């Protein structure tokens, strides 16, 4: 009899502990954690019904196994961080736990519908090296619903420059930004000189990543004319230049350039990205117009030789703009 009582007490204890845990970790959050809907949250009842249908396609095809939908503090390439209020209407959740592909919280509005369409039919046609499955089996309706859904993701928090540097560099940039007005034409022209002396040999004189040395590199230099780089904020450019890219030949320029020089460089780099429709940047760039044909690699070589002749051997440390 006493044994049986012991087992009963033990069983009651287990049940009590377990119920307590469920109440504390599942039910209590439900009671206490009911954030207000933020401005960014998509209320599917007020949207075009295609959006909710598209969300169901997203869930059905298991997109969330490879794409997450929450931007963390450290995810600086995917745009604004999310807040609790953004998820009020997201039921069931599609947060995801693994990123084989990028986070999609802010994908809306970044690419045209036609790009998404091509990307889903044959991912490798628009993103070489991608391992995303082809979704060519989706019906026409499913595909357009899915794209309608993707275009709502984070579209309301779209910003011109959503790729930010790490916090320490954001702070540092804030302090030194008074040295140079990076939006001015003069600074951009000054940066051009530093660029030509230090960067063009890999990144090419037009920033297309096709400088002469790039031929020897396994990891190709960045092509700054891609529209992607238009999303770089000033502090991101500054961080990238200062710290380089680990695992590649991109050096940490803070070892050889002063902060001021790097800011001139930022001012120039900002002018390079374009979407192919407009002239590069808003900054008026007058010199070196003879180099506009990007296909003449020989000319690039010649140009770099000339540069060396004009400025003395091109050395780290860069020159002041003339």
């Amino acid at each position, binding site marked *: 009899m006493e044994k049986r009582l012991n087992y009963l007490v033990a069983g009651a204890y287990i049940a009590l502990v377990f119920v307590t845990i469920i109440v504390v970790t599942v039910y209590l959050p439900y009671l206490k954690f009911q954030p207000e809907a933020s401005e960014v949250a998509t209320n599917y009842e007020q949207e075009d019904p295609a959006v909710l249908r598209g969300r169901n396609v997203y869930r059905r095809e298991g997109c969330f196994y490879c794409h997450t939908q929450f931007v963390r503090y450290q995810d600086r390439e995917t745009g604004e961080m999310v807040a609790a209020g953004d998820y009020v209407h997201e039921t069931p959740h599609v947060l995801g736990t693994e990123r084989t592909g990028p986070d999609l919280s802010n994908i809306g509005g970044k690419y045209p519908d036609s790009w998404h369409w091509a990307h889903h039919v044959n991912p490798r046609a628009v993103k070489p090296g*991608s391992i995303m499955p082809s979704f060519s089996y989706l019906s026409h309706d499913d595909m357009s619903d899915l794209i309608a859904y993707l275009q709502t993701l984070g579209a309301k928090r779209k910003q011109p420059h959503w790729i930010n540097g790490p916090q320490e560099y954001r702070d540092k940039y804030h302090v030194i930004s008074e040295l140079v007005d990076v939006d001015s034409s003069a600074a951009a022209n000054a940066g051009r000189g530093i660029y030509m002396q230090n960067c063009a040999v890999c990144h090419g004189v037009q920033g297309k990543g096709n400088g002469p040395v790039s031929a020897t590199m396994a990891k190709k230099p960045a092509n700054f004319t891609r529209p992607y780089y238009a999303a770089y904020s000033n502090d991101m450019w500054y961080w990238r230049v200062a710290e380089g890219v680990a695992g590649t030949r991109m050096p940490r320029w803070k070892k050889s350039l002063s902060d001021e020089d790097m800011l001139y460089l930022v001012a120039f780099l900002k002018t390079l990205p374009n979407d192919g429709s407009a002239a590069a940047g808003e900054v008026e760039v007058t010199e070196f117009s003879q180099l506009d044909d990007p296909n003449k690699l020989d000319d690039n070589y010649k140009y770099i030789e000339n540069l060396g002749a004009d400025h003395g051997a091109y050395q780290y440390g860069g020159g002041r703009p003339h």
Partner: protein
Amino acid sequence: MNRFLNAVFSDEPFSASRNFLISAIFWLVFGTTIGLTAGALMTWPDLIHEVPQLSFGRLRPVHTHGVLIGWLSMGYVGCMFFLGTVLSGSKRLWSERLGNVTMVVWNLLVGLGALSIMNGYTEAREYAELQGIFDWMVLAGLILTGINVYKTVLSGPEKKWYVTLWYILGALFWFPIVYVVGNRAFVQFDGLNDAIAGWFYGHNILGMWFTVGGVGILYYLIPRFTGNPLYSHTLSMIGFWTIGMFYAPTGTHHILQSPVPEWLKAIAVISSVFLLVPVFTVLTNFFMTMKGKWSLAADHVPLRFVMASGLGYLLTCIQGPFQATRGINWYIHFSNWVVGHAHMALLATFSFIVFAAVYYIIPKVTGRKVFSKQLAVWHFWLSFLGWIIMMLALTIAGLVQAAGWHFALPVDQWGMELEPYMFVRFLSGVMIVLGQILFMFNIYKTVFSKNYEPIPASPTGMAYV
């Protein structure tokens, strides 16, 4: 047909255990093959074209469903039926027929559930993909199993329960509740609260079912294989009670950087770290019980599986609390590192336990010696080496991937760096699937072959250590 029905709805002692284990092995080969196909798609994304049922996003849930609900859960129930009977001193299960009905329900739900997910009928929550009707079937299967095992144990002559029984009864109490809380067929929350409930389930299917059940089975197998008495019953009890305390609140560490309440994350991280307590009491107990008998593994294949699972458990449970801390999770999360961790827990630890249990239980319940020891050895090495290679490939791939995300580079600039690791992972998958096919063949020959080496079929009356 009659013979088949008789075998399926048999009332013979231990038939339910046998049928559960055999079905489990079938779902093992099914689940790992699906996993291998999904792994192949990570290397050759255009391998399968225009077949929606076989696209990656659908194969992955079928893989997890097949190995979790199909293979491991059915294997566990088979072991629980056997161990519950033997350890309580009963002659047979409370109701073999009920056990066999459970087996049929379970097989139906695994098969039809896999088909439904493949065809796009999915709840779309990781590890809880099954839709309403199948959720009810899982719950029914668990409750029927629970009734059966509880009745058997309570009505058995043995009044002082060995620790394995504690674990089995605990698992059968905890898991149905976890299942109800975590599945939208029963409980529905909105927004982030849905994620919190989802990960309460997603982690506790591991914690309150696979860990508790697996450790319970190990507590039986190790003294049985080595002939040593259990090192410490006190330690085993400490392990049991602390698992009950610390495992259940850890779920939120899967969404540690999402905007859920900070206090909830704190609870999850702290209890994750505290998991080291049950882990080390359990492992100390195991390794001390092995004392002086390690050399037996040279000749004893099931013991080899047990030792490998002990190693897997040690690594998994050091890695687990480590990567659940904020500083590490900050870097590791969202990468293939975590996929490697999952395979370490579910393949190297819990599957290996069930492998050993199958090699031990099947001869006991059929009265036939295992068909071929050589095949079992091959099964061990293919699974073990396959796991080591897969874990290394996925872990390194995870570090590369995490570096990519943290350098704020777009994925199309570094995604191809993962290709070699994904290829190696595919090769390791081939090894593992091959091992499981040999395993299935071996057990098939053991159970169904006309020529067999008989051993006395009397699993009852064995005193446990």
